[in-house]
């Protein structure tokens, strides 16, 4: 079983459009959306939820105003500037619990907070494990771990050949949680100077966590010069650049129709994504 995660560093390069098409093309796969704070994969796969689970993140401090004598020990102790006027700002609180320890009157308690939900759904391409962090919540990395764990269990139960994971943008906590111990990372890049800069950082992340990256360039024809630079740069670093997808309005049309582009179109982008999947499905992984 092979776990393939799609990352990009820079947002909006086309991760979800590519991954949803892989879901159509792969036989026997489990699908996984690791972008838990702005998930989109479900919009192309018509999922029917079969399991719903609650997700609790870090605890949040609560001050009992009846018991508090406003001595200020908690305010002095908090490193996150989360206590103002003897009330806890739940958005700033990182749940360390130090305020509750230093309070001489035991007026502070730590409370669990419901930070989101995760789901197992049925789709016409196999099971999908996905999640939704509640707005403005912390700890998306932990929720990503929960989603990936369930996807692995399902893959084992169903003897799936692939887990196909749609990753988040960036290189921080949720990207790290999506990437660590995956079999392979496909980096969807774009030929902008920003895209090149962000690609270098996400390749650094792959090196850091020892996951083999493959690179494809989406909308390559917006700058053929930058596309060549990306390919040269990959070559210099021993990274394989395995595909070029042209700018094709059918990609957006498919999103508007709620379909993976390979299901809806037979044109340029669709053809290249099919070739890309062939290359990934058959590429050797240690």
């Amino acid at each position, binding site marked *: 079983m092979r776990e393939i995660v799609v990352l*990009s*560093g*820079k*947002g*909006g390069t086309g991760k*979800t459009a590519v991954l949803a098409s892989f879901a159509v093309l792969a036989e026997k796969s489990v699908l996984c959306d690791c972008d838990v*704070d*702005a*998930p*989109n994969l479900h*919009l192309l796969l018509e999922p029917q939820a079969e399991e719903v689970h609650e997700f609790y993140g*870090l*605890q949040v401090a609560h001050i009992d105003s009846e018991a508090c004598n406003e001595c200020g020990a908690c305010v002095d*102790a908090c*490193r*996150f500037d989360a206590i103002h006027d003897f009330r806890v700002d739940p*958005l700033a609180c*990182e*749940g*360390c*619990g*130090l305020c509750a*320890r*230093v309070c001489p009157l035991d007026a502070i308690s730590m409370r669990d907070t419901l930070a989101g939900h995760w789901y197992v759904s049925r789709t016409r391409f196999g099971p999908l494990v996905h999640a939704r*962090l509640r*707005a*403005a*919540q*912390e*700890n*998306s*990395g932990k929720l990503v771990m929960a989603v990936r764990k369930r996807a692995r269990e399902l893959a084992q139960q169903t003897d799936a050949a692939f887990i196909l994971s749609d990753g988040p*943008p*960036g*290189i*921080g*906590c949720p*990207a*790290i949680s999506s990437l660590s111990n995956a079999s392979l990372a496909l980096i969807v890049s*774009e030929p*902008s*100077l*920003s*895209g090149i*800069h*962000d690609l270098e*950082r996400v390749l*650094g*992340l792959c090196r*850091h*966590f020892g996951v083999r990256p493959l690179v494809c360039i989406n*909308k390559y024809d*917006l*700058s053929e010069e*930058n596309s060549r630079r990306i390919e040269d740069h990959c070559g210099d670093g021993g990274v394989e650049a395995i595909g070029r997808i042209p*700018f094709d*309005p059918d990609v*957006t049309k498919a*999103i*508007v129709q709620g379909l993976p582009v390979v299901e809806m179109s037979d044109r340029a982008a669709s053809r290249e994504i099919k070739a890309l999947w062939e290359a990934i499905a058959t590429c050797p992984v240690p």
Partner: protein
Amino acid sequence: MILSIASGKGGTGKTLVATSLALSLQGQGAVQLLDCDVEEPNAHILLRPQIDSSRPVTVPVPAVDKEKCTYCGLCSEACAYNAIAVAGRTVLVFRELCHGCSACSHVCPAGAISEEPRQVGVVESGRAGGVRCVGGRLNVGEAMAGPVIRAVKRLADPQATVILDAPPGTSCPVVETIRGSDFCLLVTEPTPFGLSDLTIAVEVAREIDVPCGVVINRDGLGDESVERYCAQEAIPVLMRIPFDRRVAEAYCRGETLAAAMPSWQQRFRELFDKVRGLTAVGSVI
């Protein structure tokens, strides 16, 4: 005035709007652009500032004095992040999990835990024409963007018009960026993806009580669903940037809209005037 530029979905044009707005406001008092997308900072690519100062961002992490430690394990019990563990006669500190709260040193009965700084990123400042630029950069492999974002925001000039370029998403790094702003511009694209993430971004802005308005980028490329949503929710659409392959190509070369098509500077100034009107005392959104 502190104005943050966010989106939910990545790649919708936050940085294009933030940099173009900053450039268009040059000469109208001090303008400062803070790049708070510290995982993948891009504003400097478009603005090319001359960097004149660079400083490390550190998080305090525990340092255990083996002479004093009694291996009682209270530090490990106190840590909410599983960043310190006692196994037999060894104390393991997982520095990258540590949030720097100091609960471990607080509970240590032997006074064996002190703190040492650990670098997680860097903050740079410089100048691009009339725009003062500050940007943070998280070290590759580090999970927590928060301390770097906070370090960037500490350099905000209270006298200036401050424009914050937020990271994508809707969780802690975005909240860290836009809290304290007078207004949040949400840049979106007119597709179901753009709409879905915009809906969550609006929830975030409402949760932290920052008024917001929308900029639709690549207008004409998708469908009408974003327009309908904004009308329904009474969220003002303050600018529409039509889809134009030339804009996308200029962006690929690292050009802002304000530089590639100077006629847009006036429209960005008008956008800013609209925001100012909406944040004026007494107006309610």
